[in-house]
């Protein structure tokens, strides 16, 4: 079966900046691929290349078997693009927006109406379809944008940071919509800064940095590579921090991180539940008081630290928001 996306040595430069530096990526059909990386890693540039919005300087890119450079029209016929900026027309209703895109795919007036109705229904916007898009909330706009990428019945959906800037509830609604699409057979290539998003939606995660792929695998594979979840203890008293870090340090081999300002100590939980339980029992026995205990997924900074041995430099940390 033809791979859905085959990128080989993809390179793109903007003046002195190299956005894509020989990126290799293969996504088989039937997959949801999440491209994960901090700002400036090249995620958006890659999606734009797949969407035929730009041409790479070097390397090859095949989308659904078509050469993105030589057969861009063929690629455009099978893709649907939904970007961060929710590119819809505010002065048209949801329905009109969808009909417009459907017509641009070459559908007749009647077919376009049917496509629009079907997509509105699928995304839970049927009731709001006849209101002007400028009256929509942020989450609804994103869903409409997603809808616009669907009316042409694409084989591959390109989602560029689909939930950035959304409140937690809209985020989850959008995840559900995406999952439903995947179950119905659409392939997805998405970019994200959030590890939990990749975890929830993707079957293949590609971590990129500086325009190159640094790790590839299923979410489970990657987490194994990174070493699983992080345990975080929030101490009540500053003077207990040292004690806690000693205790946690004994949880096989993880490096302990202390944040004195917030009185938090964190460590990777390799051994899962048991080691943690015994450490907590010893802490309790020694009279240490804890404000809070949390177990969370590593955030992107921690993933990078683990994979590349260095932090994501001055891009700022991308903590996974509480979902």
């Amino acid at each position, binding site marked *: 079966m033809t791979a859905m996306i085959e990128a080989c040595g993809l390179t793109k430069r903007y003046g002195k900046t190299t956005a894509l530096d020989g990126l290799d990526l293969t996504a088989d059909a039937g997959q949801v691929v999440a491209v994960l990386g901090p700002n400036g890693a090249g995620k958006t540039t890659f999606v*734009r290349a797949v*969407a*035929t*919005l*730009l041409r790479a300087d070097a390397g090859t890119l095949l989308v659904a078997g*078509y050469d993105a450079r030589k*057969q861009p*029209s*063929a690629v*455009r*016929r*099978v*893709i649907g*693009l939904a*970007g*961060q*900026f*929710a*590119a*819809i*027309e*505010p*002065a*048209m209703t949801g329905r*009109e927006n969808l009909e*417009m*895109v459907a*017509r*641009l*795919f*070459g*559908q*007749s007036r009647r*077919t376009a109406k*049917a*496509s629009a109705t*079907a*997509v509105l229904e*699928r995304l839970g916007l049927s009731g709001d379809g006849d209101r*002007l898009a400028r009256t929509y909330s942020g989450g609804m706009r994103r869903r409409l944008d997603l809808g*616009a990428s669907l*009316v*042409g*019945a694409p084989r591959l959906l*390109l989602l560029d940071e689909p939930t950035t800037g959304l409140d937690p509830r809209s985020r989850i609604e959008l995840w559900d919509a995406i999952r439903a699409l995947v179950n*119905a*057979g659409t392939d997805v290539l998405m970019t994200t800064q959030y590890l939990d998003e990749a975890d929830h939606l993707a079957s293949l995660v590609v971590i990129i940095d500086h325009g190159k792929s640094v790790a590839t695998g299923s979410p489970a594979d990657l987490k194994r590579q990174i070493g699983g979840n992080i345990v975080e203890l929030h101490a009540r008293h500053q003077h207990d921090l040292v004690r806690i870090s000693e205790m946690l340090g004994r949880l096989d081999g993880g490096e302990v991180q202390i944040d004195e300002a917030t009185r938090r100590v964190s460590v990777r939980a390799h051994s899962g539940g048991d080691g943690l339980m015994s450490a907590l029992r010893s802490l309790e026995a020694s009279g240490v008081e804890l404000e809070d205990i949390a177990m969370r997924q590593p955030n992107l900074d921690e993933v990078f630290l683990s994979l590349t041995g260095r932090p994501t430099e001055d891009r700022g940390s991308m903590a996974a928001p509480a979902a």
Partner: protein
Amino acid sequence: MTTAIAHGAAGGRTGLAKSTFTVTRRALLRYVRTPQLIVLATVQMSLFFLIYRYMFGGAIHIAGMSYVDYLVPGFIATGVLFMGIGTATAMAEDLEQGFVDRLRSLPIPRSSVLIARATADTAILAWSTAFTAAVAFAVGFMLHGSALDGLAAFGLVVVIGFAFEWVFITMGLFAGNAQAAQGMGMIVFPFAFVSSAYVPVSSMPSWLQVFAEHQPLTYMVDAVRALTLGPQAQALLGHPSSYYVTRSLLWALAIIAVSLPIAVWKYRRG
């Protein structure tokens, strides 16, 4: 859902006419349904026209005619230039907000998006010009030529507007965002004012006259003026209307011939 949708043949594109029509419709709907846009388009030109006519009308004397008769052709011909700044801004906004991205990712001809922009905005400026002309008639403007010449004058203004649209579309594509587009739009001012539009060129200092005499707007304004002034025109302007109309059309053609390819190239490149 997928079974209900008919696909075109792989590699095929939606036709130019259909694509252009669909995108034009969107631009027009945006105008019509955004109160501030449609009110501005209708009223702004007229407002400024009234200001010029009443503020300057008393101070500026043109031999042999009322200032309002002198002003209207000039004002309307350069008015389309000012409306063009709106085109550059709209183009830049579409770029900024990702709307152009969506259009470029669709299987439609590249040029359809640009033609749609030019068509929609030309329609808007035709509307604005018609409204201003109506206001002009209401405050004393008179056609001294035939009604046919008057219509030709209107048609010429629309053609001029359409030609300059391509300059502004190019501007918007290069500007990349609304503020930059507005800034670049300021180039309109010397072309609009250092011309025969508002005052006779002979009244300007000699170093400005050189520019005014040879720039396209002067020819265009004088062409419109020749058509609306009728027989008086030759005496005032020195040449028959055909002279000015021909030159205006040649300029319009030249403007399109230069800016259209640049616009398409820039749009394709992204």
